[in-house]
C-alpha cells in the first residue's frame, strides 16, 4: 500500500468506527466493494426471483381484492429489485453484468424461492414467514455502512413490513375459515416452517463471510442470533393462528426466555443451494427466458433512442445552418 492508500484506509476505518456512511465517491477497500456488490446483487436477485413463486398465484387469486394485494406486492418486489440494482451500480457494476451473473448461475439468490407455491395458503405464508425472516435480516441493513445500500433498505423494509402484515392477515382469514381452509393453512405451515428457518443461513459454527461483514458494519447480528429472534417472535403468532409447529423438539425455556427448537436439516439446505430444489431450474429458466425473449424489445428501445437523438441533432444543425 502506498502512503496515500494508507491514509485512505485509515479514514475509511474511522468512518466505519464512527458510523459515518461510506458514499459512492469515497475511497473504499476492494474487498469491501466486492463484498457489497456480492451481497447487494444477491439481494436484488432474490427480489426478482422471489416474484415468481407469488406471481404463480396472481391469475388464481381467490378474490379481486386478494388479486390486487398480491399483484401490488409482487410489483413492490420488482421495485426493490430496481433500487438494489441501482445501489449495485453505484459500486461500478452495471445491471446487465449483474443480470448475466444471475442467468449464468454464478450469482446466488435466496434459496427459499426454489420451493413451490402449491396452495393459496402458501401466498400468505410467504408474506408472514418469508418476509418476516427477510425483515429480521434486513432491518439491521438500514444502518449498513454503505449509504446507498442503507437508504435502499429503509424503503425496502418499510414495504416489507406492510407485506408481512398483509400476509398474516390473509392467514388469519383462513384460520377462521372452513375446515378445508384451516387444513390448507396448517399444510402450508408444515411445508414452509423449516425452509424459513434455513433462510438465516448456516449456523454460526460453520458460516463464512460473516466476520469481515461484521467488522465493516454490513452485518450486525449472527445467523443464529437472527434465527433465534425469528423463532421467538413467530411462535406466538403461529399459536394465534391455531397452528401446530412442525417441530416435536420445540419448547420454551423459562430460564433463557427463548424457544429451543429442533435440528435443521442442513442436507436439504445444501441440496437446494446446489441447485436441487424443486424449482431451481424453473426459476432460473423463467428469468433467462424473460431476458432472452426481451432482447429484441431492449434493442428496439435503444435503436429508437439513438434515432431520436440523431434526428434532434440534425434538426438543431438545420436550425443553426
Amino acid at each position: 500500500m502506498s502512503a496515500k492508500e494508507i491514509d485512505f484506509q485509515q479514514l475509511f476505518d474511522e468512518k466505519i468506527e464512527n458510523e459515518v456512511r461510506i458514499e459512492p465517491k469515497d475511497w473504499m477497500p476492494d474487498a469491501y466493494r466486492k463484498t457489497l456488490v456480492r451481497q447487494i446483487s444477491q439481494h436484488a436477485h432474490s427480489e426478482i426471483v422471489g416474484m415468481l413463486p407469488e406471481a404463480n398465484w396472481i391469475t388464481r387469486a381467490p378474490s379481486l381484492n386478494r388479486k390486487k394485494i398480491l399483484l401490488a406486492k409482487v410489483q413492490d418486489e420488482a421495485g426493490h429489485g430496481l433500487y438494489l440494482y441501482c445501489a449495485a451500480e453505484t459500486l461500478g457494476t452495471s445491471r446487465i453484468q449483474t443480470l448475466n451473473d444471475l442467468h449464468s448461475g454464478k450469482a446466488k439468490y435466496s434459496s427459499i424461492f426454489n420451493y413451490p407455491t402449491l396452495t393459496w395458503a402458501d401466498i400468505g405464508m410467504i408474506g408472514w414467514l418469508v418476509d418476516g425472516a427477510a425483515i429480521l435480516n434486513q432491518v439491521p441493513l438500514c444502518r449498513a455502512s454503505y449509504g446507498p445500500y442503507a437508504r435502499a433498505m429503509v424503503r425496502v423494509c418499510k414495504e416489507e413490513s406492510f407485506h408481512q402484515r398483509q400476509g398474516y392477515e390473509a392467514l388469519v382469514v383462513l384460520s377462521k375459515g372452513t375446515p378445508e381452509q384451516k387444513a390448507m393453512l396448517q399444510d402450508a405451515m408444515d411445508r414452509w416452517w423449516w425452509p424459513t428457518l434455513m433462510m438465516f443461513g448456516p449456523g454460526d459454527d460453520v458460516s463464512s463471510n460473516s466476520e469481515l461483514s461484521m467488522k465493516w458494519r454490513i452485518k450486525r447480528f449472527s445467523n443464529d442470533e437472527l434465527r433465534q429472534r425469528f423463532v421467538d417472535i413467530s411462535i406466538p403468532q403461529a399459536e394465534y393462528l391455531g397452528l401446530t409447529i412442525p417441530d416435536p423438539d420445540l419448547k420454551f425455556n423459562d430460564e433463557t426466555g427463548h424457544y429451543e427448537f429442533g435440528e435443521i436439516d442442513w442436507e436439504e439446505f445444501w441440496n437446494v443451494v446446489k441447485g436441487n430444489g424443486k424449482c431451481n431450474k424453473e426459476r432460473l429458466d423463467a428469468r433467462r427466458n424473460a431476458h432472452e425473449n426481451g432482447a429484441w424489445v431492449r434493442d428496439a428501445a435503444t435503436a429508437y433512442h439513438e434515432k431520436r437523438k440523431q434526428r434532434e441533432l440534425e434538426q438543431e444543425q438545420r436550425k443553426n445552418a
Partner: protein
Amino acid sequence: MTATVYQNNQNYIDFILHLADTNLILAQRLCEWCGHGPILEQDIAMSNMALDLLGQTSNYYDYAAEMIGNGATEDSLAMLREEREYKNLLLVELPNGHFGNTVARQFFYDSYHVLLLEQFLKVKDLKLQAIAEKSLKEVKYHLKWSSEWMIRLGDGTQESHDKIQQAVNDILPYVKEAFLLSNYQKALVEEGLIENPEAFKAAWLSKVNDILEEATIVADVENAFVQKGGKQGVHTEHLGFILTELQYLQRTYPNSQW
C-alpha cells in the same frame, strides 16, 4: 333524470358488466406477464396498468352488484358467472403473445378507453361519471405508455418493426368491436341513457392513425373486418381457459371467505 331510470334497467346492468368484464379480462392477461417482462421497468408498468384496471373493475362490479341486489358481490360477478355471461370485448381476451402483441392490444384498447371515459364525463348517471373521473387519469397514462411503445417498436429495429407490424395485422379484426352496439347498448342509446360510442369513432381513428404513422406501421383500420360477439357473450376459445384459472378457487371452495 333520476338514478332509478338506471337502477332497474337490465340493459344498464349488462352495460356496466360489459365495462367491468373488459377491464377484468385485460387485467388478468396483464397479470400473466408479472415476473416475465422484457425489462424490469416494463414488468412494473404492466403490473401498474393491471392494478389500475382491477381498481376500475371493482368500481363497476360494485355498482352492478348494488343494482342487481340478491347478494351479488364484486367477487360473485367477477368469478362465478359462466363463460357465456362474460361481456368483455374479444380484443382483451387475445393471448399476450410477445411483448409487441401485448403492446398492440393495449394501444387499441387504451385509445378507445380514454375517449369512452371522456364520453362518460358528460353522462347523466352521476355514479358512472364519478368512476370515469377517477379512472381517466390512469387510462391516459396507459395510452401514453402504449403509444410510446408502438412508436418505439415500429420505429426501432427492423426486427421490432416487423414484429409490431405483424402484431397489428393480426389484431386488426378485433379493434372495432368496441364501436358496434350490442343489444343492450342499442336499447340504452335509444332510451337516451348512454351515448353512442360512434360519436367519437372519427376522433379515435384519427388518433390511432397518427400513432401508427409515427410508428411507420401500415394498417387500414377504417376498413378492417370486424370480429364481434364478445359483448353478447360469444367469445373466442381463449376466454374459457382464462376462466379456468380466474375462477378456480371460488369454484373449488364455494361459500368461503378469503
